[in-house]
Structure formats: structure tokens, C-alpha cells
């Protein structure tokens, strides 16, 4: 089998696996949003500050998902293994 094809196939698999951490991110963001909604329901008069804090919290919780996305984008579009293999194959 063509080694390049194997590398590309596994890179795609790695990208998919890296994106799996979106599950945890989604759970965390759901927690943040539900807690914020509870807080707003309890104290509607401070909903403005709760909302802005919630957005910051959502963005922070999103960070791990962003790192997964970074790895999958690297695997798909800027795979460092392919130049390595090409260099190796030429030599």
C-alpha cells in the first residue's frame, strides 16, 4: 500500500478524533449557559452583567475545543508529516 495514502488516512482519522473533544466543550458550555439562565431567572435585574460574564465564560470554556480544532486543522491542511515523508522518500 502507498505509505502516503496511509499517512493521509490516519491524519484524517486524527483530525476526527481531535474534534471529538467538542463533546466535552459542548457539555461545559451547556453548563455555563444553564447556570447563567438560572442566575438570570433568580435575579433578573442584573441580567446585563450576568450575560457579559456568561459570554466570557463561554469563550473560556471554548478554549479546549479551539485547541482540538487547531490540531484537526493542522492535520487536514498543514500536515507536518507529509513533508517529512516526502523528504524521507526522496532520500
Amino acid at each position: 500500500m502507498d505509505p502516503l495514502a496511509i499517512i493521509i488516512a490516519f491524519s484524517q482519522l486524527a483530525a476526527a478524533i481531535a474534534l471529538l473533544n467538542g463533546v466535552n466543550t459542548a457539555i461545559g458550555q451547556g453548563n455555563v449557559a444553564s447556570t447563567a439562565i438560572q442566575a438570570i431567572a433568580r435575579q433578573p435585574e442584573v441580567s446585563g452583567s450576568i450575560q457579559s460574564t456568561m459570554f466570557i465564560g463561554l469563550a473560556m470554556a471554548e478554549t479546549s475545543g479551539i485547541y482540538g480544532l487547531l490540531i484537526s486543522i493542522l492535520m487536514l491542511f498543514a500536515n507536518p508529516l507529509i513533508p517529512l515523508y516526502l523528504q524521507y522518500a526522496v532520500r
Partner: protein
Amino acid sequence: MDFNIKNLWVLDIAGVEVWITETMMNTWIIMLLLTMLAVIVRVKLRTFKQVPTGFQNAIEAIIESFDNFVHNTVGDKFMYLGNWFFMVFTFVLISSLGGLFGLRPPTADWTTAFALALVTFGMIQVMGIIHRKGKYLKSFFEPYVIFFPLNFIGELARPISLSFRLFGNALAGVIFMSLIYGLIPIYLRFALPAALHFYFDLFSGVLQTYIFCVLSLTFISSASSAGAP
């Protein structure tokens, strides 16, 4: 299915190859648009009245709400940061909305997002050193000296996560929209993508713009005052 950043021209400047990409072209289009808008507002400012109406009302509402937003996030001391972040706000917003007109958003290129995040990173460091001097540098070695690598990497991760957040959302929109346009038959292309455009370009674009500005301002203000996160 075409979501690549196309290269329009390739320049050769003093032996260095420089690609002029679609991103840059779109950036210049947006810059031209915003500059024209700004000049129109500047000319009309002379005829602005005490009691605003119509166009003046819209401009005042935008500027005033942005002013309040900066004020609420960083306080009175750092109002001059508004000059930079007003550009970030309008630019990212307009480039997200540009997706509605088939313009590939410049923020869907990592280089644009990273350029903006890099400025935020530089501001964090400079403001921290100016306003807290030694204490800011010392905060890298807290709570113990051996935590320095962790803190350092955490600091470096900030512009990366900031830029990838913006880039990832914009790119997701671009990829999704181009996949949808590639999938559906041509006679369905009028109505169906409108809802997706609404989500990916309008909602996500506005939200990511807001989050980028809020996070940057929060990082800067917390680095320049005590109790950094």
C-alpha cells in the same frame, strides 16, 4: 467545494516571493468601504444637529454603545484603547457580514486573526509592564518559581486561542456554506442557504466579534491591574 484562499498575484520583492491572496484583496475592499463611510460621516458631522435624526442617530448609537461597552469593560483609565478596538470591532463585523455578499471573510484566514490577536498580546505585555512594572514580571513566577514554564506557555497560548477562536468560527462558516452550496441543486440555492447564512454570518459573526473584543479588553485590563487571572 472551494474554500481555499486563492492567490491572486505573486510578487517578487527583492528576491522574496510574496503572495497577494484573496484575503488581502478582501481586506482592502473592506478598508475602502469603511474609509468611505468614515469620510461621509466626517463630512456630515459638520451638519450634525443637537437633536439627532436618521443617519446621525444611527452613527451616534453605534459610537455611543461602543464607548459604553469599552467603558464597562476596562473603565475610564483605558478609554484610549477604544481607538484600536473600534477598528477591530467594525472590521471583524463587516468582514463577517461580507460573507452575505459572497466575499470570503478575511477573518477566515488565520493570518488576519493572528495579526489582530498579536496586537492584543503586545498590548497585554506592554500595559502590564507599564502599569505594574516588576510586579507583572513577578506574576510569571507565582505561586512558585517552578511554575514559570506553565505560566509562560499559558501566556503564549493566549493569542493562539484568541486567533483560532475567531478563525475557527469564520472558517467553519465558510466550509459549511461552500459544502452546502456544492451539495444542493442549483434551483434550491435561493431560499435554503438564507437560514444558514443568518446563523454563520450574522449571528456567529456578531458573537465572535463581541467575544474577541471583550476577551482582549479583559485580558489587557486584568494584566494592567492587580489580580491577573
